[in-house]
């Protein structure tokens, strides 16, 4: 096991700069998830750590070793690929033991390691099968088994669950988590799925356009996003953004939403944004901070009711997603199942300002 350090990592493909100076310190045993939209450079970073892509500039260290020019096999890493990348002509056992056989590990030791990994992953009865005789979930388990037997310093996962259906994805997420709790190997996991990022990570690294937007615990990136991108990317449905102005009303600093209510700001936040008074800012409010009027669970006392016209209703069973219009913007709210809003109806929704994010539109930084 080892820590991984990325220093000013840059990758250029011809003229396109895919990774633009990444600095990241991943301590031993940590589970780090790189998350971001397609093309943000997260897979390229992972592939550079694996040694599958050359580094244009910068340094990668695994443990104390600078690995820029070390071939993949000598980096003591194991990688799990999106499409499993199992050798189709080998049995599960041969797939898992291939790396050890190439390294001329003793047969008895190989057998022991494969058996142990198979037991951990619950695939002991599949050892004699070939990949084509396995389901998607089983294949991904075998791919993880192949990584485990090598006993690497670092696990690299490249969108490993993307090819699985939603239910299986949920199960495998739990298994990966259990695996990490058991093995405590430093893990770098790439995904575009923020649910995977939130549920698996000790630390989430949100990437955009080849740069790190924010690195922090799942709680931090969700509740204290540093940029508009992070605020909008994490959370589903996404955060609502609309223009607002910070003003003083009745001795309170409030954010007056465009065509919407004026939300009083908590004292600390008010102090931070007072200098922006009179300027147009962007307010970010998560759907769960806009609730039905009769809500019992949303800290109702501080909520500001506002009448809106409902556009679309999406009942999800345990909650209902409601889209409504406020001026020119379409916003989204989460309401409980006890209310039954209908499209086209006028209703009162309550805006909770305690988790309101104010963003400077010039810098896109959260204030």
């Amino acid at each position, binding site marked *: 096991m080892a820590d991984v350090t990325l220093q000013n990592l840059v990758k250029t493909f011809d003229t396109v700069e895919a990774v633009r100076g990444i600095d990241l310190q991943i301590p031993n045993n940590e589970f780090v998830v790189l998350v971001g939209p397609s093309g943000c450079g997260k897979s390229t970073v992972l592939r550079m750590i*694996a*040694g*599958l892509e050359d580094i244009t500039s910068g340094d990668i260290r695994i443990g104390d070793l600078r690995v820029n020019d070390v*071939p*993949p*096999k000598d980096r003591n*890493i*194991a*990688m799990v*690929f*999106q*499409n499993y*990348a*199992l*050798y*189709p*002509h080998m049995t599960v056992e041969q797939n898992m033991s*291939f*790396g050890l056989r*190439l*390294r001329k590990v003793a047969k008895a030791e190989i057998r022991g390691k494969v058996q142990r990994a198979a037991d951990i992953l619950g695939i002991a009865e599949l050892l004699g099968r070939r990949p084509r005789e396995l389901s998607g979930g089983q294949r991904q388990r075998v791919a993880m088994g*192949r990584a485990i037997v*090598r006993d690497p310093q670092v696990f690299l996962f490249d969108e490993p669950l993307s090819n699985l259906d939603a239910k299986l994805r949920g199960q495998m997420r739990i298994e990966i988590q259990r695996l990490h709790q058991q093995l405590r190997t430093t893990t770098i996991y790439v995904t575009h799925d923020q649910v995977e990022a939130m549920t698996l990570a000790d630390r989430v690294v949100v990437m955009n356009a080849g740069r790190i937007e924010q690195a922090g615990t799942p709680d931090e990136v969700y509740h204290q996003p540093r940029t508009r991108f992070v605020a909008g990317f994490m959370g589903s449905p996404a955060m609502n953004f609309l223009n607002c102005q910070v003003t003083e009303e009745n001795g309170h600093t409030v954010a007056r939403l465009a065509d919407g209510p004026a939300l009083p700001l908590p004292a600390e936040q008010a102090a931070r944004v007072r200098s922006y008074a009179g300027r147009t800012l962007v307010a970010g409010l998560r759907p769960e901070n806009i609730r039905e009027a009769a809500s019992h669970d949303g800290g109702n006392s501080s909520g500001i009711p506002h009448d809106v016209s409902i556009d679309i209703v999406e009942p999800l069973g345990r909650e209902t997603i409601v889209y409504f219009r406020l001026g020119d913007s379409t916003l989204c709210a989460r309401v409980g199942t006890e209310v039954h809003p209908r499209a086209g109806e006028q209703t009162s929704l309550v805006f909770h300002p305690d988790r309101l994010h104010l963003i400077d539109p010039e810098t896109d930084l959260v204030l």
Partner: protein
Amino acid sequence: MTAVPVTSATSLRANRRWALIAAYACLGIFVVFFLFPPYYMLVTSLKTNAEIAELASNPWIVTDGVTFGHYKHLLTESSFPRFFLNTTIVTVVVVAITMVISVLAAYSLARLRFWGSGVLATGVFLTYLVPDTLLFIPLFKIVGWLGLLDTYWSLILVYPTLTVPFCTWIMIGYFGSIPRELDEAALIDGANHLQMLLKVFIPVALPGLIAATIFAFTVAWANFLYPLAYIYSESEMVLTVGTVTTLIKGDVFHWGGLMAGALLAAAPPVILYAFLMDYYIAGLTSGATKG
């Protein structure tokens, strides 16, 4: 309401029946058409010389009694076994040379991505398009210069110029269809390029490899032009030319012997095809089904 689906299901079934009947009728015609020459060869090879020469006899069946005399003559009193041995040596060596060169070439052209590899891959295929009837004269000079004229080693030298480009092309396509993640997984597992080729690429591309082998085998076994041009001594001849030159004396055709010789010469490719046909088809059609 229910009448509609029943009718359409019935018509679908009737449609399928007619399609099957038509398919079998066409297949039947093709079978007769293609099996006619081997059948004629077999029947003629089993006839006595007298019956073959008899104009009034029925050419389709043996009427004067079956004889294995032509086979016996070929195998015991002619150079036919020598031709067979020479052909086997030439074919085995050519197939081996072809497969080693084309697998290595295809792997490097498909995967190593060096400067100009794309152009080179196309170039390899273009050389295959040059007809061998054009090549045999310049090659004759080279073979003569090397002192290999009138030995079957000239064929071993020359045949790969026909087989390597096509086999390389087949293998490039096949190696190209192997997902790149497989190489990357093997790289991380610790394989070098040779191990990757031997332990991953060749086993995964086995159908393509077999298709290429069959192609090289067929070319080396059945080529007529080069042995005719380069080999003159009976002891060095291969089946295609040897059978014809020893069994046609002037304007006298030993039809029985010719037919027996042709049947025996055709047997190894037929046996090989029969065993490997499924792989051959899978190999040649792999590009059609894999993304």
